[in-house]
């Protein structure tokens, strides 16, 4: 194993900058049938909340041209059950584990974060951008002021570094990123899903019980790349970018736009081997271009 892809995200060492995205990878177990998770740069847990959540009723998935809409609504077993049942398994995997945390109000965020102080995660991804839950979720993530506030409070009480996951549905994303940086965030990730709508014309009805849902997949890549670029220009803390990455070329473009790491979401459903193929593709790129490390093209545009 060479070190073409080794990457530092602050002082966290990643074997490579490729990480399956929250909510598209469960807690990893399901993908162990496909490959050794230790080959990944890291992995990111399904979004967790303080209490268990049963998620949204009704249709949860709807395919769109080059995209996928989901309305999962943060179904998850809750922080306690996660720590008890998933963490012991996750922490044994030789890769960086990122814990994704959502909340419905300030208190639930803070209590969840405090509980996580009990485990040794390497990074927490603070999800203030889920468009699929009624309370909390995206509400914090669409205004710089509220995003900064919740970040400040979370950073204060967490013993883990906090990476804030931004929404593409709010005010100028660079402003929000700066507010999070000022509030002490150690990293930014983006984008969460774009708010969209589906109508089933046959049924003359909306598809999702929750009315709107989150759009992801290749369709959104140009928007995600623009926002990643804006945020990389705006902040000094490292950025983990995602949105529609489907192959190593897409991944490379986000790195060229300035991203330190990249996350792989929806494409896992199309091709479970996608993360490994992206790692292999980036490595081959380094070799073909004569790069000692992928970092040499980071932020090159």
């Amino acid at each position, binding site marked *: 194993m060479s070190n073409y892809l080794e990457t530092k995200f602050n002082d966290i060492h990643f074997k490579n900058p490729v990480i399956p995205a929250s909510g598209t*990878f469960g807690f990893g177990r399901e993908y162990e049938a496909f490959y050794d998770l230790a080959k990944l740069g890291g992995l990111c847990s399904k979004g967790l909340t303080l209490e268990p959540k049963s998620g949204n009723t009704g249709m949860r998935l709807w395919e769109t041209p*080059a995209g996928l809409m989901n309305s999962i609504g943060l179904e998850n077993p809750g922080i306690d059950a996660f720590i008890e049942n998933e963490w012991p398994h996750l922490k044994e995997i030789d890769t960086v584990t990122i814990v994704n945390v959502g909340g419905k109000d300030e208190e639930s965020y803070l209590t969840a974060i405090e509980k996580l102080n009990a485990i040794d995660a390497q990074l927490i991804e603070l999800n203030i951008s889920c468009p699929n839950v009624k309370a909390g979720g995206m509400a914090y993530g669409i205004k710089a002021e509220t995003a900064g506030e919740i970040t400040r409070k979370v950073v204060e009480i967490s013993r883990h570094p906090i990476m804030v996951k931004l929404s593409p549905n709010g005010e100028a994303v660079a402003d929000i990123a700066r507010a999070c940086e000022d509030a002490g965030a150690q990293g930014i990730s983006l984008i969460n899903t774009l708010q969209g709508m589906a109508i089933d014309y046959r049924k003359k009805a909306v598809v999702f019980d929750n009315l709107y849902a989150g759009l992801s997949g290749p369709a959104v890549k140009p928007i995600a790349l623009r926002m990643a670029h804006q945020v990389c220009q705006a902040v000094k803390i490292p950025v983990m970018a995602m949105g529609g990455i489907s192959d190593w070329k897409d991944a490379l473009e986000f790195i060229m736009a300035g991203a330190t790491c990249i996350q792989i979401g929806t494409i896992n459903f199309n091709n479970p081997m996608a993360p490994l193929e992206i790692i292999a593709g980036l490595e081959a790129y380094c070799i073909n271009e004569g790069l000692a490390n992928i970092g040499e093209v980071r932020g090159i545009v």
Partner: protein
Amino acid sequence: MAVILSNTLVSAGVFKMTVAFTGVVKPGQFFMLRAWDKDPLLSRPISVHDYESGQLTFLYQVVGKGTEILAKLQADDEVTIQGPYGNGFPEIIGDLCIVGGGIGTAPLYYLLRHYRDQNPIGKCRVYLGFRDIAYGIEAFASLADEVVLDVGGIITHKLSVLPGETVVTCGPELMMAAVANAVPAENTVYVSLEAHMACGIGACLGCTCETRSGNKKVCKDGPVFVREEVFNV
């Protein structure tokens, strides 16, 4: 990638595809099929219609973009299949009563064949309902003790389940709910559910269904459930 051995029209808009595959496959399990790159984005869940000596068969109805592409494939073409996924039907002890509706008959044929292999003296009765045109009846008839066919009607009007029979049903949700309600409480009833799926392996939580014991994943915990779990009966 699996090589297609044949892919033929069996009835209006219904195709049967056989591919080469080696593995252990239970009745009621399904595969995620894809014969395209990224358009459409997702693979399509299709049940195992039959599996024998390295030949895996699917029976599918053309309803949209994905199945349209599948229908155009020819022998020697390749198709990406992932699986088998899902719990599949349990081993049936005693007599069996199968109730299939439309393309929901697809997984039931393999169930019947498997049942016959395991249980040569067990009795098996089959109810098959279709909206317009029936298909695949002979295959069921060759293995079942009795086949009741209904076209254009409501299958539960004809259905009468015998004491001790285990009922297995697959078809439109309304039909399965009607079966679940019609069959006496003493009989065990298994239903095979459908849901839109992204991953097929339990990672995305997109196929969740509510059950008496909380949320379950149709792809991983199902698609087969005991009726009481998923229907209010």
